[in-house]
């Protein structure tokens, strides 16, 4: 299909551009990243091999030309080599990320889907009951939308974990638990994920509510909604007709929102000491672990691109007009 192949082409181009940006940043920024990393690594033994790896990673002190460095970068990328993480005792970046990625995928993925569903439903409701007390929900959602995710995380921990004691205040699981597929472990993980997920849902649902409401209100003025009403269709059928048309812009703006949500979720992880990408990102920042920073950036970008592609597939599936255009 033409539309889909064009979108895939765009995402591949974006992915290449992201890798290129990742390659360029340490080379065009002022300062010498290798010496910066070495100064942070005091107390660790730096072997010539490590030094060499760092130089290749950041492109200083090598005699290779820019293009040679670039192709080298790509080839090591395809070999699954993202460099060496210096903040965790010289282990490959990939293994550090592999340990953190499942937590982030589970938490952020679930929370994003939940907030999209809840926000869209609430948006429909608010639009349908326009002029009622539900309109007062909007200023409140505005506040939650404007507040930084991590500030809400602070509030959530202070209130629900410390004062009320309903949820554990941080971490992803009980240290003493042994990972296993039994109910004790799973319930423990869910228990720890509940509060961070709730924070992300509350913070990100506001955008979906407002977006859905605005489109829904415009849609409700369409003639086919009036006709559905004039036919005397039951209320839920009329709402369904309007909503399934109004949801399209929400899905197409998903690509705009997902980056924000993921960014916010990373910061939420930090406050909750949740051992996902956000948490190792903070470590990387504090320890000056540039290779890990770059690796996390690449992984997050690729994840966001894939999420976008999925949203595009859904959109093309839902809206026949996009298929006819092709």
């Amino acid at each position, binding site marked *: 299909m033409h539309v889909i192949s064009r979108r895939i082409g765009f995402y591949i181009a974006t992915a290449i551009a992201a890798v290129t940006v990742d390659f360029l940043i340490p080379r065009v920024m002022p300062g010498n990243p290798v010496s910066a990393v070495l100064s942070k690594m005091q107390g660790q033994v730096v072997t010539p091999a490590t030094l060499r790896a760092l130089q290749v990673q950041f492109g200083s002190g090598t005699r290779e030309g820019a293009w040679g460095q670039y192709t080298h970068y790509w080839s090591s990328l395809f070999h699954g080599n993202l460099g060496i993480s210096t903040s965790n005792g010289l282990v490959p970046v990939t293994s550090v990320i592999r340990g953190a990625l499942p937590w982030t995928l589970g938490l952020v993925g679930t929370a994003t889907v939940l907030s999209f569903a809840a926000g869209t439903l609430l948006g429909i409701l608010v639009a349908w009951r326009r002029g009622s007390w539900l309109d007062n929900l909007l200023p409140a959602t505005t506040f939650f939308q404007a507040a930084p995710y991590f500030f809400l995380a602070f509030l959530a921990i202070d209130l629900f974990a410390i004062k009320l004691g309903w949820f554990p205040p941080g971490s992803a699981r009980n240290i003493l638990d042994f990972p296993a597929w039994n109910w004790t472990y799973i319930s423990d993980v869910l228990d720890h994920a509940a509060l961070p997920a709730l924070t992300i849902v509350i913070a990100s649902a506001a955008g979906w509510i407002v977006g859905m409401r605005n*489109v829904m209100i415009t849609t409700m*003025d369409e003639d086919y909604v009036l006709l559905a009403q*004039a036919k005397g*269709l039951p209320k839920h059928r009329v709402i369904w007709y309007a909503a399934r048309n109004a949801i399209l812009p929400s899905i197409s703006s998903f690509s705009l929102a997902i980056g924000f949500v993921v960014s916010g979720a990373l910061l939420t992880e930090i406050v909750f000491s949740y051992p996902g990408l956000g948490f190792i*990102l903070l470590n990387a920042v504090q320890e000056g672990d540039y290779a890990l920073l770059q690796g996390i950036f690449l992984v997050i970008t690729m994840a966001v*691109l894939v999420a976008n592609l999925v949203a595009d597939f859904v959109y093309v599936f839902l809206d026949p007009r996009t298929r006819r255009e092709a």
Partner: protein
Amino acid sequence: MAIGTSTGTSTGLGGGPADTGPLPVPDAPVRRRRLPRSPKVLIGLGALAVFLIIAVIGPWIAPYDPTRTFSTTASFPLPPSAAHWLGTTQQQQDVLSQLLAGGRSTILVAFVAGLVATAAAVLIGVTAGYAGGLADDLLSMLANFFLVMPALPLLIVIFGFLPQSQGGDDVLIGLIIAVTGWAYGARVLRAQTLSLRNRDYVESARITGERGWRIITFEILPNLIPILASSFLFTVLYGVGTYTALAFLGLVNPNHLSWGGMLFYAQVAGAESSGYWWLFLPPGLAVALLGTALALLNFGIDEFINPRLRAAGLTRRRARQAGLTGSARPPRRFVLGVTPVVRSEPLTAASGSASHHSSERNGVRADLAAPGRPGLNRLWRGRSPR
């Protein structure tokens, strides 16, 4: 088209977006009708004014020097007291003074980011929309690339490599944030320029031999101002959030006072799990309220652009005050599903629950054939013209 910017697409029923005054206050002069004066806008404007004043005079009205250490013996943050209205930090500095002094940097960065990003958005978006062709394709591709790429991780990498000495320069930080923040505005402006480009008055300007830049600045740009304002506010809002996030991560020089930096120190002190609420609540609330003010203003502009949203926010009482509804007119908000159309006519009542397609159509036709019927009449009047 993006949410909240569905401009210029109103079909049939209403006029264009700019010339509609959907709240016909009978005595108000025409000029006043065009100003969005909803409570949202007023509250947003008022709050934003307060924040701007704090940004200017905050460092001067702060009761103490925000970096002064008050005690070398106390080892934990002190709760609010008469001497320190918002308590002290882990380093025994006055929180209120930091709050007042930290606003300047936060607001400056956000506005620099907003201004630069909006300028870039106009340049790129309007050029792409007006030029069309290959230039449009390339510029749109660039904008889409920046839209899709998650901005915060990119900024984190950039700031990570930025030497510490340059990490406290507000203008530089604003510029870097602007690099990641212009694309949304460019996309919206491009879409609107595309729709304006082929309007008759632009065509006639082109036929009379106006130059391209003149058409853009005098014919097209004035009609983009509401969208421009909206995109500016959006970018400022984005700048506030992003700067706070970067400072919270400790990527901005931590000695550089800002609200995000205060949250960074709150996190370092373990404020959330130790109950030191005065460390994170004041700066967090300040950021949230500043953001809310900007978002409320943005809502106002959205409602100005798309009048349907404005009427929707009215409660019944306020709508009546505005003269939209009276004893003669039914409420503007129609209650779907319980229309009298169904009840008054046996044929239609059957069709309401019928799954039969033919009977449904018949029922409606019967109604449409008799426009004098009270039920349908009421329905039409419920959709008051705009």
